[in-house]
């Protein structure tokens, strides 16, 4: 069978590693480490740079299609050159710094933002052999690296000397304070069950299949599904995407922290937003969707990085789909949602995961009990908290005269 | 100069800078930040001793610092809450003017 011949360590699977080794093999021994790291950095920059470019196009095209219009289709075949046209435009536009702005911070903000949002990619395992840095504390590193993004948004908002931007800066801070906690807490169950902070080990813990086609991904457990949902909601907020795009609310604050940015700095903000989105989606794939693992034993011959990319793209599509549909929350509602809904749910989910890992030995009918309890621990709080959260707001019936 | 001495000197310098900030500036937030710096200097010492001094238990220094960071976070949270309460009360943050415990 060809599939069997290709698994698990086929040529395709090893191709990127082989390519790297070929290049570093040309250099003297002492340079290997540096060259290897540089190659990895270049690969991540190029890969995600290209992904960013085409993600902007995909977002516009998908939004267009959802809105019954074609989206950009003039530059190149099907508009495929649009991202480059945008890039050229951004580069050639005048860079305006408002009078009275804090010039240094105004300049630093987009740079810091992009730099920081790139850091997270270092520990994502893109494939069986593809992880830039093997860290024992990878998950902690990932979230530590991501914390500075809102700091950069704050810097941009504050340095712009614009009232809308200042409001955006306040919103960014409030949003971060509210959403960092559920984001981290929704990850903790995975760490608890997998017993490690290392991303590669977390992916390894999700390997294998029941019956050959039900993968042992965390998302297929009750706590994992809940954790995945909570993580994605918090990730939406963390990456300032609709419906949590409050700092950038274009219908209220025009573009919030971006109001006073133009040209390439503006493009950098977008780049950082998409990088953040990709990094968080990649983390979600790693933590809940089995990372680079194939969904079925029969499909394992497809290289692992292809699976990772496919899962990543599906999540990114979800981001775009949600953006096309939902209105924006208000700041106080956002905080209420975080503190009164997400945080309790993540805490309960933590307990749920703990119970799940304690009852790992249960079999037979006890297994059913285990599932029932875990499911009810997800569903009941969701319904109850959801009801209290949306208390007083419901579709109304109207009287007629 | 051994690495340990270097680290301890750095820590001492950082502590002094924190002290100077806490003593010289009158803004309550800055004073708090100075104290934070001093705490950081102490943490630096723990790690320095853990790394460059033999005889310590393998994880003690690290765990000490973790506790210190947690306590520092709590301290900062309470401190900043106090700052906000102070601001509500006297409409500025000058510590020299905060001379009464009762409003």
């Amino acid at each position, binding site marked *: 069978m060809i599939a069997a011949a290709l698994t698990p360590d086929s040529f395709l699977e090893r191709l990127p590693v082989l390519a790297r080794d070929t290049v570093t093999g040309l250099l003297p021994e002492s340079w290997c480490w540096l060259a290897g790291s540089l190659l990895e950095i270049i690969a991540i920059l190029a890969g995600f740079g290209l992904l960013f470019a085409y993600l902007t196009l995909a977002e516009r095209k998908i939004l267009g299609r959802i809105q019954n*219009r074609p989206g950009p289709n003039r530059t190149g075949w099907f508009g495929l050159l649009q991202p480059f046209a945008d890039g050229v435009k951004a580069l050639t536009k005048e860079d305006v710094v408002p009078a009275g702005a804090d010039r240094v911070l105004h300049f630093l903000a987009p740079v810091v933002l992009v730099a920081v949002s790139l850091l997270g990619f270092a520990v994502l395992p893109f494939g069986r052999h593809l992880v830039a840095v093997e860290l024992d504390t990878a998950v902690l590193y990932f979230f530590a690296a991501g914390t500075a993004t809102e700091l950069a948004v704050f810097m941009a908002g504050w340095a712009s000397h614009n*009232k809308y931007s200042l*409001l955006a800066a306040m919103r960014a801070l409030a949003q971060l304070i509210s959403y960092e906690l559920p984001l981290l807490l929704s990850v903790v169950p995975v760490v608890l069950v997998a017993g490690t902070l290392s991303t590669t080990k977390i992916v390894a813990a999700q390997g294998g299949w029941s019956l050959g086609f039900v993968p042992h991904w965390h998302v297929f457990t009750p706590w994992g599904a809940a954790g995945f949902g909570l993580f994605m909601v918090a990730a939406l907020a963390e990456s300032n995407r609709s419906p949590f795009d409050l700092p950038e609310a274009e219908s*209220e604050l025009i573009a919030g922290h971006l109001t006073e940015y133009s040209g390439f700095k503006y493009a950098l903000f977008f780049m950082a937003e998409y990088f953040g989105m990709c990094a968080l989606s990649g983390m979600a794939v790693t933590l809940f969707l089995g990372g680079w693992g194939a969904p079925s034993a029969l499909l394992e011959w497809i290289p692992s990085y292809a699976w990772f990319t496919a899962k990543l793209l599906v999540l990114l599509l979800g981001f775009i789909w949600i953006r096309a*549909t939902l*209105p924006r*929350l208000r700041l106080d509602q956002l905080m209420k949602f975080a503190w009164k809904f997400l945080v309790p749910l993540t805490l309960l989910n933590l307990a749920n995961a703990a119970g799940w890992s304690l009852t790992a030995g249960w079999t037979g009918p006890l297994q059913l009990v285990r599932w029932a309890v875990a499911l009810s621990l997800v569903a009941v709080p969701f319904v109850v908290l959801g009801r209290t959260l*949306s208390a*007083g*707001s419901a579709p109304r019936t109207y009287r007629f005269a | 100069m051994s690495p340990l001495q270097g680290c301890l000197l750095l820590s001492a310098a950082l502590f002094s800078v924190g002290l100077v900030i806490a003593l010289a500036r009158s803004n309550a937030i800055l004073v708090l930040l100075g104290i934070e710096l001093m705490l950081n200097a102490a943490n630096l010492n723990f790690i320095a001793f853990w790394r460059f001094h033999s005889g310590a238990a393998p994880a003690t220094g690290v765990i000490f610092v973790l506790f210190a960071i947690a306590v520092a976070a709590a301290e900062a949270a309470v401190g900043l809450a106090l700052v906000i309460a102070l601001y509500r009360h006297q409409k500025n943050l000058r510590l020299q003017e905060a001379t009464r415990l009762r409003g």
Partner: protein
Amino acid sequence: MNASPFTNPSTGAHVRSVRSDLPGDLMEVSMGPHHPSTHGVFRMIVTLDGETIVRLKPVFGYLHRNHEKLAENTSYLGSMPYTDRLDYLNSMTNNWAYARAVEQLAGIAVPERAEYVRVILAELTRLLNHTCLAGFLMQDCGCSGTPLMYAFREREKILDLFESLSGSRMMCNYQRFGGCRVDPSADWLARARQLVEEYGPFLDEFEALLTGNEILLARTQGVGRLSAALAINAGVTGPMLRATGVNHDLRKVDGYGVYPRFQFRIPLGEHGDVYDRYMIRILEMRESLAILRQAFAGLPAGPIMNPAAKLRGFRPKVGEAYGRIEGPKGEIGFHLVSDGGPNPWRYHVRAPSFINLTILEDLCLGHTVADAVIILGSIDIVLGEVDR
């Protein structure tokens, strides 16, 4: 701040709560005149405490072209195309209101067929306006254009109808004193009938998209509450007034045109908040569809213009008249004073958006910037009409 007579309860006037103890840490933001959510060139000078609005002063007039002065220097007929440009979404109802005022001033009768056609066009205009408003309001709530594009997709179909009838999509210039300019053909009526049949499913889709959306409910319910008493006292009309629960619709109250012949209901709100204003408009669209069906069924044959009506050299006798109809945004009225000459001596537009704006500050106080945007959106203003 001005000493406000609103604070005197002995006059029975409606008190506007003005905070006099403004604390120090306030920020004044000038929202507009170029702000994406002010629906044109409109400006709100907002004083914020954090993000909470403690004072809001609307500023407008950026589009002021002294429409009324123009009309005083133009013949009665010549003002008709200018009325298109007042509320540029609703040129048909503007035309009708003006035609009605002139008809009252000069005592011109309108043939029955023309009355039916006017009702058809007015209800199509109502559909158009409310669809647009729903789209704009959702856009203000932060939807990335999707509801707006759906609304515009349907609006285009109505505009196509207007175009093939009157020759222009928005600046229709269709009504005349004593009738309508062109008689709609059977083909046109068939197309309009088909549009009406297809509109119900579109409304269902639109409602499925957002009406039950939890975020929208949270954003709009309880926001910008308007009391019935204040609404009446402040001259608020149209869906905004009915959202507060006041049963007042000129189609029923005045019974102008042939409206008394149709069966339709008036949806009434209860809370007077943004959600009610939005839903009243959605429900009104469904009632409009019912009116349209009846109008198509009952459309009589006959002339479309009163043969006695003059186009050129129209000089009404000395006198004055105030004619009003229920426009999609509220009561649109024209006050005409004639001195017997070819031009009106005084021509005044009672613009519903303009008067509905009176209570903007009352609605926004205590809410946040984000709410101010959707409250303004729910008032449904068109600056062409506000500034005139």
